[in-house]
C-alpha cells in the first residue's frame, strides 16, 4: 500500500445532516460525523438508534432522504460505483453463501471486486489462514459455526484491501475468546492504515478499538469525542465501598466525608457507599487509613473511574445492552459486576 509518508489529516468519511425516515419512523434525524483517514470511529447506540441505517447509507445500500455522505471524497449517491470499489462492508448479519466453501465464498467476492483470478485465489488463501479458517477452507460454509461465519464474512470484506472498512456490530454473537481475536484483527487493520467505522453496543469494544466515538440515540448524535472526553462528561472518580453490616454505612460515610468532593451515596440494599473524590489513589489510601480507625467491616473497597457504561447511562437514560460479563474497574482491577445488565 502506498500511503503518503507526510500525515495529511483528511477525512475518509464525511456525513452531513443525514435524515432517513421509514414511514412514520424517523430513523436518522440529522446525523453529522467525520472519520479521519486511517483512524477508527466507534458508532455507539442502543437498539434502534440508527447505526445500521448510517452504515447502509454510507455503503450505498440505502438512499438518505436528506443530507449527504462522502467516502474517500466520493459522493455515495453520484459516485456510488467508485465508493463501492473503495469500501469493504461487513453487515450486521453474516452474509456468506452457505452452499459455497469458505474458499469459494472469498474467491467469488474477490472476482466481483474485479481482482484477477490468480490474485483472488492467493488472497483468499491468505485471508483464510489469517482468520484461522484454513482447516475449514474447503467445507461448505453451511457447516461453519456462527463465529466462523462471522470471520469469513469479515475476510470477504477485506479481500480487495479496501481503504475504508465498515463493520456493523462485528463481534455481536461471538464468545469472549473469539471477540478478543476479532479485536486483534481489527486493531491490526487499523495499524495498517485502514480507516474503520465500526458500530457496536459494547462500550468496552469501542473503548478498546476506537480513536473517537459518536454516540447516537433515536437518530441523533448525543455525544462525541474520545473515550476520555466522554468519560469526563459523566463526572470524575469515586471510592466505592461495600460493608458487611448495612448499619455501618452511615459510620463509613461520616468517616470518609473529608475526602468527598460531592455528597456520598448510600445504598442499603447492596450495602454500598459511593464517595466522589478527586485525589486518585491517594484518596484510596487515605480512605483506607481512616476506616482502619473504626470497627466498620469492609468487604470491598476500590477506586472507580467512570467507564462507558456510565457514559451511556448518563447520556441516554438507559443502559447499553450488555451480555452478562462484568466490566473491569479501570484503576484497581477490582471486578465490578455488570449492574447495568441487559435491558432488551
Amino acid at each position, binding site marked *: 500500500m502506498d500511503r503518503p509518508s507526510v500525515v495529511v489529516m483528511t477525512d475518509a468519511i464525511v456525513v452531513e445532516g443525514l435524515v432517513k425516515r421509514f414511514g412514520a419512523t424517523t430513523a436518522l434525524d440529522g446525523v453529522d460525523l467525520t472519520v479521519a483517514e486511517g483512524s477508527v470511529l466507534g458508532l455507539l447506540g442502543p437498539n434502534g438508534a440508527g447505526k445500521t441505517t448510517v452504515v*447502509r447509507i454510507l*455503503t*450505498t*445500500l*440505502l438512499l438518505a432522504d436528506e443530507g449527504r455522505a462522502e467516502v474517500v471524497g466520493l459522493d455515495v449517491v453520484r459516485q456510488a*460505483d*467508485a465508493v*463501492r*470499489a473503495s*469500501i469493504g*462492508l461487513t*453487515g450486521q*448479519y*453474516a*452474509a456468506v*453463501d*452457505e*452452499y*459455497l466453501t469458505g474458499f*469459494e465464498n472469498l474467491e*467469488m*467476492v474477490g*472476482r*466481483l*471486486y*474485479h481482482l484477477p483470478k490468480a490474485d483472488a485465489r492467493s488472497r483468499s488463501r491468505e485471508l483464510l489462514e489469517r482468520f484461522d479458517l484454513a482447516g475449514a477452507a474447503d467445507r*461448505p460454509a453451511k457447516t461453519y459455526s456462527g463465529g466462523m461465519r462471522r470471520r469469513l464474512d469479515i475476510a*470477504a470484506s477485506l479481500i480487495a484491501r479496501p481503504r475504508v472498512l465498515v463493520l456493523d456490530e462485528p463481534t455481536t454473537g461471538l464468545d469472549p475468546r473469539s471477540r478478543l481475536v476479532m479485536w486483534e484483527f481489527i486493531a491490526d487493520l487499523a495499524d495498517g492504515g485502514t480507516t474503520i467505522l465500526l458500530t457496536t453496543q459494547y462500550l468496552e469494544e469501542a473503548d478498546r478499538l476506537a480513536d473517537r466515538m459518536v454516540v447516537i440515540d433515536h437518530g441523533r448524535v448525543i455525544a462525541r469525542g474520545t473515550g476520555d472526553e466522554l468519560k469526563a462528561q459523566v463526572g470524575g472518580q469515586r471510592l466505592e465501598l461495600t460493608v458487611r453490616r448495612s448499619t455501618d454505612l452511615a459510620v463509613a460515610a461520616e468517616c470518609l466525608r473529608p475526602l468527598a468532593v460531592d455528597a456520598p451515596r448510600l445504598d442499603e440494599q447492596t450495602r454500598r457507599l459511593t464517595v466522589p473524590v478527586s485525589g486518585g489513589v491517594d484518596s484510596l489510601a487515605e480512605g483506607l487509613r481512616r476506616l482502619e480507625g473504626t470497627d466498620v467491616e469492609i468487604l470491598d473497597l476500590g477506586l472507580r473511574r467512570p467507564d462507558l457504561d456510565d457514559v451511556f447511562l448518563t447520556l441516554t437514560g438507559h443502559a447499553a445492552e450488555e451480555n452478562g460479563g462484568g466490566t473491569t474497574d479501570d484503576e484497581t482491577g477490582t471486578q465490578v459486576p455488570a449492574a447495568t445488565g441487559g435491558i432488551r
Partner: protein
Amino acid sequence: MTTLGQTLSDSATITRRNLIKVKRVPDLLVFATLSPIMFVLLFRYVFGGAIQVPGDVSYAEFLLPGIFAQTVVFGSTITGYSIAEDLQKGLIDRFRSLPMSRSAVLIGRTVADAGSNSISIAVMALTGLVVGWRIHSSVPEAIGGFLILLLFAFAISWLMALVGLLVRTPEVVNNASFIVIFPLTFVANTFVPLETFSPVLRTFAEWNPVSAVAKSARDLFGNTPAAIPVPEVWSLQNPVLYSLIWVVVILAVFVPLSVRAYRRTASR
C-alpha cells in the same frame, strides 16, 4: 461505469455460484424432476386410456411436449424463490455493496436456472423415450423445439425475479407464483386438445402463450396429430412466432423492471 465485458464476467461468476448450489444440493433438482416424471407416468398410464387423441399420434407423444412446457415454466419459479432467499440471507446486500455490474446477480440467476431447466428437460425426455415418446422430425427442428421451451422459461424467470425482489419471503414467492402458474399451465393445450374446453376457457387457452409454446414444441418434434384441426386462431397457426413475440415482450418489460427493483431493493 461497468463495461459489457465486466457485466459478462460478473454474470459468469454469479452463474457459477448458483450452479455450485445445484451440484451441492442435488435434492432440489431431483425433486424438480421427479414431479414431471410422475406427471408423465400418471397421465400416460392413469388417464392415458380415458384421454383419446384422434389419429396417428399416441397420447404419450401428444403429452410429452405439454409436460415439458409445464415443467420449465414451473422450474422458472425457482428464480423468484432463490432471489428472495438471497435477500433474506443478506447476500443481495453483500452483492449490492460490491463494485459489480448491477444486472449480473439477476443474469447469473436466470442463466443458472435455465441450466437446471435444461437438465430437467433432459431427464424427462429420457423418461418419455421409455414410455413411448418419439421425435419424428429432423435434428435442427428438435433442437428448435427445446430452444423455444428454454427461451420461454428464461423469460418467465425474469418475471419471477421481479416477484422475488418485491415479495421477499421465499415461501410466499412460491405460493404467489403458483397462483399464476397453475392456470397458465393447465388452461392450455398442455394435457388435452383444446376441443374439450368450454368456449370462455377455450379462448383464454388459445391465446395463452403456454399453449403456443407447447404447440411449437409438438410441431417441431413431429408430435402433432394430423387428425386434430389447427384452431382458427393466429396464435396457434403461428405458434413459434407467437411464442417468440411473448419471449421478447416479457424480456423487454421485466428485465428493466427487475434490474430497477434490484438497484433499489433494501433487504428488510
